[in-house]
């Protein structure tokens, strides 16, 4: 593990109840892996299902935490990133609350502080959602 959930808030500006990533498991410029336990009181749990909006936010925050670590820009208050665009999104399945998802991020392109990343969310080796995101200002 490269970032523990107790330290994650040093790498992303999000705070409760809008923190959607726990641990960064591995991190390189090619691939970032994270996990996240979905608590029952998560704002994106509806009818006991973790909604796609939460999975999207999880991908964005996973990328932000990993990129922040790679750039070593550990700050008191990490800069507020901005979700610029979503493309190529496919939703395959949901998982329920009280389960842990794992997320893989592939950084594809960087232009200054603009990043294009591909993200995939898994539960028990089943892919739940995939998409590409443009993130700015990490």
């Amino acid at each position, binding site marked *: 593990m490269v970032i523990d959930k107790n330290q994650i808030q040093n790498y992303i*500006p999000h705070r409760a109840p809008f923190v959607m990533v726990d641990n960064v498991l591995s991190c390189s410029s090619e691939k970032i892996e994270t996990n996240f336990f979905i608590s029952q009181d998560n704002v994106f749990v509806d009818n006991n299902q973790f909604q796609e909006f939460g999975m999207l936010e999880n991908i964005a925050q996973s990328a932000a935490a990993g990129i922040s670590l790679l750039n070593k820009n550990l700050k008191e208050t990490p800069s507020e990133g901005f979700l610029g665009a979503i*493309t190529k999104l496919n939703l395959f399945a949901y*998982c329920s609350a009280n389960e842990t998802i794992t997320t893989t991020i592939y950084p594809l392109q960087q232009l200054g502080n603009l990043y294009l990343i591909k993200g995939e969310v898994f539960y028990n080796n089943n892919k739940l959602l995939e998409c590409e995101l443009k993130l700015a200002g990490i």
Partner: protein
Amino acid sequence: MKLHGEFYTLREVTEKENGFSAEIDLQKKHLIYEGHFPNQPVTPGVIQLKIVHELLEHFLKRKLQLVSMSHCKFLKAINPNLISSISLSVNLLESESELKVNAQSKYGNEILFKMSAVYHQKKTLPLEL
């Protein structure tokens, strides 16, 4: 968490050819802004998509399931203290198997976001694991 009535209120929904338009008012205070971000509220992009989903279900009076989104672009960060009312314009194209949605939101003449997505009726796909 349902956003309607808590995060925003719906002022008006108007049916139009091939879809509808809606006027919503954002609440300045909500639990979500405590974390996004402390002392600097920004309406999360994913929350804007959830609002569109709720409005679609409200207008069509049935549960919908997102299948895919070819693109979605957020053009302006929304500070709810500065931008309180949003106009949404939604175009629908329904076939037997799917519902194609093109949505755009505006504050005055300024475009906030636009998106294209495909939905199914909730009972079909995807299945819960």
